[in-house]
């Protein structure tokens, strides 16, 4: 139990103290036996107060502190650092939220807000009384990363990792690198050739001897954890002799006459029994399909020196400190009959059209007929309010409009019709939408409740749509080609990868980050990061940004050789535990296993793997599991604290407008930032001038100046000549 607690209750300017009687509360808690210091402070986060807290901790020998101010999301780390700087273990600090969850939420009932704040603070004091000094868990890590997926995102991340000195294994399931980008021809917005982009990234990777690429490879097994993941990788054979003469290989490819449908080109082409996805595909080693050559006795005999039909699958055992998953996405494949797909012969998808355009450089021909008109139907497989894919796929609007621009540029005389729900060409991509409109592309808006219908009438394909831009006018569009703008869906192997690496998946079946804004590439699995479209629909720029972000996280993680992980994890009381295995059953991370302690079988927690989620704790029939900082003592004492009866008289509340006359704002000294702002005001200045004079961040100046105005420390003094900004002067 803690005996020397420091309690700091923040006014937050007036954000808290306008409604909660912080001075009364600080006096009340000062009388508690185990509270040595209890203060109300104008801004708990101000530098001057942080220094005072450090002095208090050292002078009074405080063993714990409670800061009652804003949400822990804002200043948890600020005060943890204060504790650390004062030599106090940061686990002995508790943050109590009396702003977002008290003064602001109950500003309509100030007396009740004060009563609630008393309960919240009492709970904080109770909780900190049971706090334990926790030490970070140090784990030694191998400076090696495994990147899963050699698309553009994966290759770019691998290059960044290698450049920073990390050894990289990059695993690609296909025999060739480049992923979905390699299937494209030209990319927006730079008009870069997609295949050249893939080539340049591959060549860049080859410059680093600390990158090992395994193509035609997939994960077989994963064990271990942060710092030392043991990953078994299966590499499929290419059935080519390692010493094959390159000239002979080329000749064999030229002379091969056996073919099958080519999935890389959506079946628009056939591929030979010895093939590359496209002539410049990398690595520059073709793949043989032995089944197709079964009856080609003469051919096999002629080229017998290049083949190795007995080449086995290889299993490699790799060790990596961290894993970056960049496995990408699949295109949504419309169901048979969805807008006539596979039931009407001239209905195709956008990726199929892109390939068709690449294969038809001069004239767009489909089913031996020249295409003069194309109708695009947007949002196919995305934004399904009643279907599985409720999300927007982000890149398809722009991709379609870019394709439309290319159609006009490449084939000149072609008309496009765009049947859309909403056009989402966000950011600079909007310029393409404008260009498309100007070149004469026609746009019709439909709603999900009245979807377009594709029908075959005689030899024509008709798209019927109610155009919401012209009062739901029913239109019929005859099109040579109907193109379904399909969205992104998770890859079919996502569930398997999730199973191997324990990455949680969302209800949309993409991989889940910890937090979309604050931890966008981190997963709850320590050492496992996600980048690119395996996480959700992204365009190429966004995919590369996220994978590079993942790479930099990994560099920061691995470069020191050891990693400190959060000690807030599960722990088992081996005296109580009788090993029933229920905790291990519910743990998604296999962090719990049966171990032997003093000849007794009990549950053991792998500290490097445990995420501290706490799912194991409630299922224990003998209550042998606790999560650090969420122990029974801490939680139950908080509950008792909330129920703490206080004797606070209902009195008048300090109104905002009284502050001007109120000299006793409880401010013994202005916060440092206020002093700096006051020093930056010469006679009278506008906010931009004060920002320039002080060099302080603009948002901070604005926020604090408003508070200083509220407290009568500064006051407005007319507007500038352009009537854009108020002048402020120091009030005497």
């Amino acid at each position, binding site marked *: 139990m803690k005996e020397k607690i420091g309690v700091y209750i923040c006014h937050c300017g007036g954000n808290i103290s306008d409604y909660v009687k912080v001075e009364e509360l600080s006096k009340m808690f000062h009388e508690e036996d185990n509270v040595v210091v209890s203060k109300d402070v104008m801004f708990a986060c101000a530098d001057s107060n942080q220094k005072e807290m450090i002095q208090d901790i050292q002078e009074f020998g405080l063993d714990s502190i409670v800061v009652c101010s804003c*949400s*822990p*999301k804002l200043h948890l780390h600020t005060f943890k650092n204060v504790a650390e700087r004062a030599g106090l273990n940061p686990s002995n600090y508790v943050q109590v*939220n009396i*702003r*977002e*969850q*008290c*003064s*602001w*939420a*109950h*500003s*309509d*009932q100030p007396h*009740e*807000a004060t*009563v*609630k704040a008393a*309960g*919240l603070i009492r*709970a904080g004091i109770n909780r900190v009384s049971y706090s334990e000094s926790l030490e970070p868990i140090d784990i030694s890590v191998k400076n090696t990363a495994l990147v899963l997926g050699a698309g553009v995102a994966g290759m770019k991340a691998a290059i960044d990792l290698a450049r920073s000195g990390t050894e990289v294994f990059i695993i690609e399931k296909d025999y060739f690198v480049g992923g979905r980008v390699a299937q494209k021809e030209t990319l927006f917005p730079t008009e870069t050739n997609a295949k050249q982009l893939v080539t340049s990234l591959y060549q860049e990777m080859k410059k680093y001897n600390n990158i090992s690429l395994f193509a035609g490879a997939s994960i077989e097994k994963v064990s271990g954890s942060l710092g030392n993941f043991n990953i078994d990788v299966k590499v499929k054979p290419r059935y080519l002799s390692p010493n094959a003469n390159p000239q002979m290989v080329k000749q064999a490819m030229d002379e091969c006459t056996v073919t099958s449908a080519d999935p890389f080109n959506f079946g628009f082409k056939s591929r030979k029994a010895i093939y590359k996805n496209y002539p410049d595909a990398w690595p520059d080693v073709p793949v043989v399909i032995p089944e197709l050559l079964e009856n080609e006795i003469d051919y096999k005999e002629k080229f017998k020196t290049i083949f190795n039909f007995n080449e086995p699958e290889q299993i490699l055992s790799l060790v990596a400190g961290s894993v970056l998953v960049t496995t990408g996405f699949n295109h949504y494949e419309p169901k048979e009959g969805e807008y006539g797909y596979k039931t009407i012969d001239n209905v195709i998808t956008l990726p199929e059209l892109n390939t068709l355009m690449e294969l038809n450089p001069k004239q767009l021909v489909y089913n031996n007929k020249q295409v003069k008109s194309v109708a695009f139907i947007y949002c196919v497989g995305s934004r399904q309010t009643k279907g599985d894919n409720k999300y927007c796929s982000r890149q398809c609007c722009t991709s379609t409009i870019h394709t439309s621009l290319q159609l006009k540029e490449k084939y000149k005389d072609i008309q496009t019709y765009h049947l859309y729900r909403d056009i989402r060409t966000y950011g600079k991509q909007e310029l393409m939408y404008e260009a498309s409109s100007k070149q004469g592309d026609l746009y019709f808006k439909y709603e999900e409740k009245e979807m377009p219908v594709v029908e075959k009438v005689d030899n024509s394909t008709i798209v019927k749509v109610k155009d919401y831009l012209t009062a739901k006018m029913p239109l019929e569009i005859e099109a040579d080609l109907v193109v379904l703008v399909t969205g992104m869906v998770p890859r079919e192997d996502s569930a398997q990868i999730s199973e191997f690496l324990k990455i*949680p*998946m*969302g*209800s949309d079946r993409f991989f*889940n*980050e*910890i*937090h979309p804004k604050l931890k966008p590439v981190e*997963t*709850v699995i320590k050492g496992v990061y996600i980048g690119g479209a395996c996480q959700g629909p992204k365009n190429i720029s966004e995919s590369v940004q996220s994978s590079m972000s993942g790479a930099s996280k990994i560099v920061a993680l691995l470069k020191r050789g050891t990693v400190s992980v959060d000690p*807030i994890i599960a722990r088992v009381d081996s005296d109580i535990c009788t090993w029933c295995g229920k905790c291990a059953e*519910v743990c*998604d991370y296999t962090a719990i296993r049966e171990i032997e302690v003093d000849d007794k079988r009990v549950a053991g927690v792998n500290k490097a793997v445990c*995420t*501290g*989620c*706490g*799912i194991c*704790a*409630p*299922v224990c029939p003998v*209550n042998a599991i606790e*999560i650090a900082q*969420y122990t*029974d003592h801490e*939680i*139950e004492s*908080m*509950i*008792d604290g*909330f*129920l703490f009866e206080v004797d606070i008289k209902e009195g008048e509340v300090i109104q905002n407008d009284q502050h001007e006359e109120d000299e006793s704002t409880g401010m013994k000294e202005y916060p440092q930032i206020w002093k700096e702002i006051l020093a930056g005001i010469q006679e009278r200045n506008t906010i931009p001038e004060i920002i320039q004079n002080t060099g302080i961040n603009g948002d901070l100046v604005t926020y604090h100046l408003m508070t200083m105005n509220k407290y009568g420390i500064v006051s407005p003094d007319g507007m500038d000549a352009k009537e854009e900004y108020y002048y402020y002067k120091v009030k005497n």
Partner: protein
Amino acid sequence: MEQNKKSPKILVFSTDKISDPGIDQAGLRKIHYNPSVYVISLPCSSGIKPKWILHALENGFDGVFIAADGHECSFSSRCADHTNTIVETSQVLMKERNINPKRIRMAALCSVCAEPFANHMENFSKILMGLEEIPA
């Protein structure tokens, strides 16, 4: 007791990353709710022990609300099922102690669910006010 009739005491279990930011946002936007609502934030709603729920109900709280992570949980895709099991287990224990199982309520709450949170508190408060007192 008269005070209790006016505003029942509700203990909310929220989660650090999902529902707690939603509850914070209610305050930020000055969306008011019952001031006798107290929040304990945990890593995941699947980590709530039924004994904590009983402790609250036996010591003065009128109701317990679980702001569950649901499908947004970053820890487990089975989070909603786990949390549901905790509610069911708690209700069995509550019945044994003659505590009305309606005193526990669970709903998924997202990180921007400010209004839904305030609505849940209002509705739950109404339900609690209509219940018999918890036996001593």
